[in-house]
């Protein structure tokens, strides 16, 4: 099958690749570009581990065809830290012991980031709603909810 060109911005860097038509964004990111932070849990859009941010929207990269992302601005958890300093969400997840095996963590953090970008001071219900598309097998969710609330508080204190 003929390969098709794709070009997008990933965490601020221009990326251009030739891919098989029909390749998912998840596979393009992981296998072509080498960003393995989005995880392939179910490959059918039910677990949320592959979540990325495309033009500001939370998207499941396992259900997104890479060739539909031409010109898009894509963000993944791998691009959150700045100069070795962790993003407040990453810091909060660590401090809250909100990760065990870590497989769901990048998707959780992406979902939380979209929430906090839009709702800087979310309620607990807002956080639960935002995380409801992401499955975690280890933590029982409560430490994750607490981490997101903590990161929101840290953000609002920095802004003040």
């Amino acid at each position, binding site marked *: 099958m003929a390969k098709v060109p794709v070009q997008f911005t990933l965490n601020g860097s221009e990326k251009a690749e030739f891919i098989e038509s029909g390749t998912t964004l998840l596979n393009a990111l992981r296998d072509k570009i080498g960003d393995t932070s989005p995880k392939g849990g*179910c490959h059918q859009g*039910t677990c949320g581990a592959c979540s990325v941010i495309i033009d500001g929207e939370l998207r499941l990269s396992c259900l997104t065809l890479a060739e539909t992302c031409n010109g898009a601005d894509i963000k993944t958890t791998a691009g959150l830290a700045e100069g070795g300093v962790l993003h407040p969400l990453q810091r909060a997840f660590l401090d809250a012991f909100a990760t065990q095996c*870590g497989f769901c963590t990048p998707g959780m953090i992406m979902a939380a980031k979209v929430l906090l970008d839009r709702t800087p001071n979310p309620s607990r219900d807002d956080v639960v709603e935002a995380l*409801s598309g992401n499955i975690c097998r280890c933590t*029982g969710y*409560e430490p*994750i909810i607490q981490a997101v609330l903590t990161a929101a508080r840290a953000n609002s204190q920095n802004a003040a």
Partner: protein
Amino acid sequence: MAIRRGRGVAAINYPTGMNLGGDPTQALVHSTPTGNFMVTLSSVDLGQGMKQIMAQICAETIGVPTDRVVIDTADTDTGPHCMGTFASRGTHRAGNAVIQAAKEARQVMLEVAAEELEVNASDLETDGQGNIQVKGAPQKSISIFDVALSAHFKRGRSISGRGMFLIPRSYPEKETGAMKPSTCYAHACTVAEVEVDDETGEVTVLTVKNVFEIGRALNPKMVEQQLVGGSWMGISHALYETTEPYYPNRDHGGTDFNQYLMPGPGDLAQTEITVLERPSADGPFGAKGPGEMCANPQIPAVANAVFDAVGVRIDTLPITPERILRALKAQAAG
């Protein structure tokens, strides 16, 4: 038709490890030329924190800071033998093996330091900060870095140790059937409060209050993390999860996360965790295995709470609305 409330309690004893052909774990410890310590294991860290705990155990035994210890795990082709990470055995079995290996390595380390300081090894102690000093005369000291350099380049010695921990296979006594299939029991008790809708059969877990007796919490925050997640998983087992809802018939078995149900972040019960520490005699620094144990007491507690709420005993898991409604129908039919 109404929403009925019930409360159930359950307590469990849970064994650490298992009794098949014997239950061994082995560990190797050696120092690098810079005086860091490498622990080689075949045991697997799958997120429960084994690397952190083994680093703490090794560091405590040798007498160095935890960040001076590196854990290499999970290559069963090349590593020392371990039966695996299951049966809540990791901390207990691998921990005991690491202690034995680290003790042997510590002894070599002290012997090399003794030669450098020209004192008797039995007069030496570690300061926990990376130095070895003479008891009562801490000004006479040598860094473990320098001890390692000496061992490697001057003395031709390997600062290393071997650890072997084996629970032998237990056979039942012919007369009584008595045997010791496992060691070191952890304990837990849970009180669950539920609401049961007797029209739809739906169960909502309102609160779970758990008490866990786990020997000794070697890393309290990581223990809490395990217990909170385990309590959630216990409820998931009680009410949601099954691969074969009509076991042994495979029909309607879940094939993906749409069908294999688990409680999501919106379905959380208010959860309390209390940890009791009663160090076990044969555990590493008193630890028992909290891993699997912590997801068990919620299941009978929820079943008892459902009985308290609507008067039917569900003896097949998970306790689905269908099973409750069938039981209620049978109860009404008398």
